[in-house]
């Protein structure tokens, strides 16, 4: 099926007609005309029918064409489409569990973190309000995924999307990493990618919890405050009796990051500290109202994180305040785990081998 399904309308009427058909997330959309969709596809040299992957639980394939239609509707520009494509390929990784994420009563959203130079190149925001409004690339890239979930995967709120509450990130949830100075490292390097590549990291995520510590510059103090937000018994990854643990994104604001970096802490020091200081005891969980169906020792330790590697550390945000944010995965790692996909166009040819399904690996030396 090429670009043959749809309807004719005057462009001025199209927005209301699209509302009537239930194809939007509640906001007005840009009418997806053939010219706009073609421009989107040309930006990545793909055809309308090219299949990006299959969500077998939904009996649905995701094609480049339908993705482009939804990207146009979201307000994205052709230069955003490479990042959108990488985001979809990351989300199609079975580890993310897109089917459960887009059905769950837990109401998670696909969080997209763009790490690498492509973020700046396409105008994404990694500074002040990185998690908020004001930037077309951030908002429209994230919104494209929401519309894809609605229109291609069929997750209509109240029908197949069974979220009890949902959260605002379900409208759009994308931002770029701000590479820290002094070669402190980046998220993509933590995940094993070269610094000169750009990648999209996808996480099935709860809403962000902003963390304030404005008066104590000690790294241990800042991280202890952040740890309290991660190990909050209300988080779904905290305190499962099976002690599996989950993943959590920590967005370090620049002033917190500066204090930590200047004190000589490495990224791995931060991850180790946050892993060790987010382990809860059964007693703490019981005191917080969580019922545990066993009679194990009350002092037994239940990790909130899978390990230090379960902490995804990102730097972003603006100067002028001492804030960070904690974004827990919506479920433990036996249900969901982040996935990463590189943007092929940011990788030198001699470093890359890509399979036909879009999965790419470094050439072995």
């Amino acid at each position, binding site marked *: 099926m090429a670009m043959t399904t749809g309807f004719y309308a005057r462009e001025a009427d199209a927005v209301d007609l699209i509302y009537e058909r239930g194809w939007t997330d509640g906001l007005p959309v840009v009418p*997806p005309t053939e010219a706009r969709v073609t421009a989107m596809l040309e930006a990545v040299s793909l055809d309308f029918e090219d299949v990006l992957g299959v969500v077998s639980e939904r009996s649905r394939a995701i094609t480049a064409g339908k993705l482009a239609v939804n990207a146009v509707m979201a307000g994205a520009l052709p230069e955003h489409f490479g990042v959108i494509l990488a985001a979809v390929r990351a989300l199609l990784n079975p580890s993310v569990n897109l089917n459960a994420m887009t059905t769950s009563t837990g109401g998670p959203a696909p969080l997209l973190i763009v790490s690498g130079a492509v973020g700046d190149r396409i105008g994404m925001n990694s500074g002040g309000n990185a998690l908020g409004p004001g930037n077309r690339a951030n908002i429209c890239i994230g919104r494209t995924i929401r519309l894809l979930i609605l229109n291609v995967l069929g997750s209509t709120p109240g029908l197949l999307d069974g979220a009890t509450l949902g959260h605002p990130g379900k409208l759009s949830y994308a931002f770029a990493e701000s590479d820290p100075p002094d070669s402190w490292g980046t998220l993509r390097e933590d995940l094993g990618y070269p610094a000169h590549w750009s990648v999209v990291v996808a996480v099935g995520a709860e809403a962000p919890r902003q963390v304030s510590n404005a008066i104590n510059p000690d790294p241990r103090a800042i991280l202890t405050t952040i740890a309290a937000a991660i190990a909050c018994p209300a988080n779904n990854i905290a305190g499962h009796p099976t002690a599996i643990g989950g993943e959590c994104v920590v967005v370090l604001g620049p002033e917190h990051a500066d204090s930590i970096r200047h004190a000589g802490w490495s990224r791995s020091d931060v991850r180790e500290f946050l892993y060790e200081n987010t382990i809860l005891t059964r007693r703490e969980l019981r005191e917080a109202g969580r019922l545990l169906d066993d009679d194990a020792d009350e002092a037994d330790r239940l990790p909130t994180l899978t390990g230090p590697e379960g902490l995804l550390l990102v730097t972003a945000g603006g100067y002028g305040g001492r804030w960070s944010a904690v974004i827990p995965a919506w479920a433990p790692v036996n249900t969901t785990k982040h996935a990463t996909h590189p943007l092929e166009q940011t990788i030198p040819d001699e470093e890359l081998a890509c399979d036909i399904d879009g999965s790419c690996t470094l050439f072995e030396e």
Partner: protein
Amino acid sequence: MAKPVFILDPRETDSPVELDRPAPLASLEGARLALLDNRKPGAGTLLAALGEILVRDCGVAETSASQKESAGREVASELVAQIASWATAAVTGIGDCAACTASSFRDATALERAGVRTVLLITEPFVGIRDRIAQMAGLPGYPAVVLRHPISILTPQALAGEAERVAGEVAMGLVAMSAPEVA
């Protein structure tokens, strides 16, 4: 007057897949019943109680309980093969959340593809999720036995009572010439 433009449809259409459900058993007498627990609170207790009732009342010969990795993921193919190598019938659940229901539906159809007649257990708020996911899979009307909700807060005694309440319907789903009525 402005010229009309063609607005492209952003949706994907359903792509039904074939499933010939295994025939109902002639009776549960001598049956080997697999109980697939999705790890939701109360699921193991309710399934165990259900197994005991079907042994007591319907002549099931043996039951075997197993757990899948996560309520939010489809059962591993290795576990399906293991169950199918032994069981003549199965009960799976409990779909008492949206993602759990979508996943347990997949578990039930995976077991049935492997030749094991299966009854899916869900709770009342997730009938609509079952309806939609079954329709997308090309299996509209795929049956489920519907439990009271919320099931996760019930005591073991109350779970046993719920098992007693639905045991007949579960047995009907396994042996009847027609599936239980779609809830």
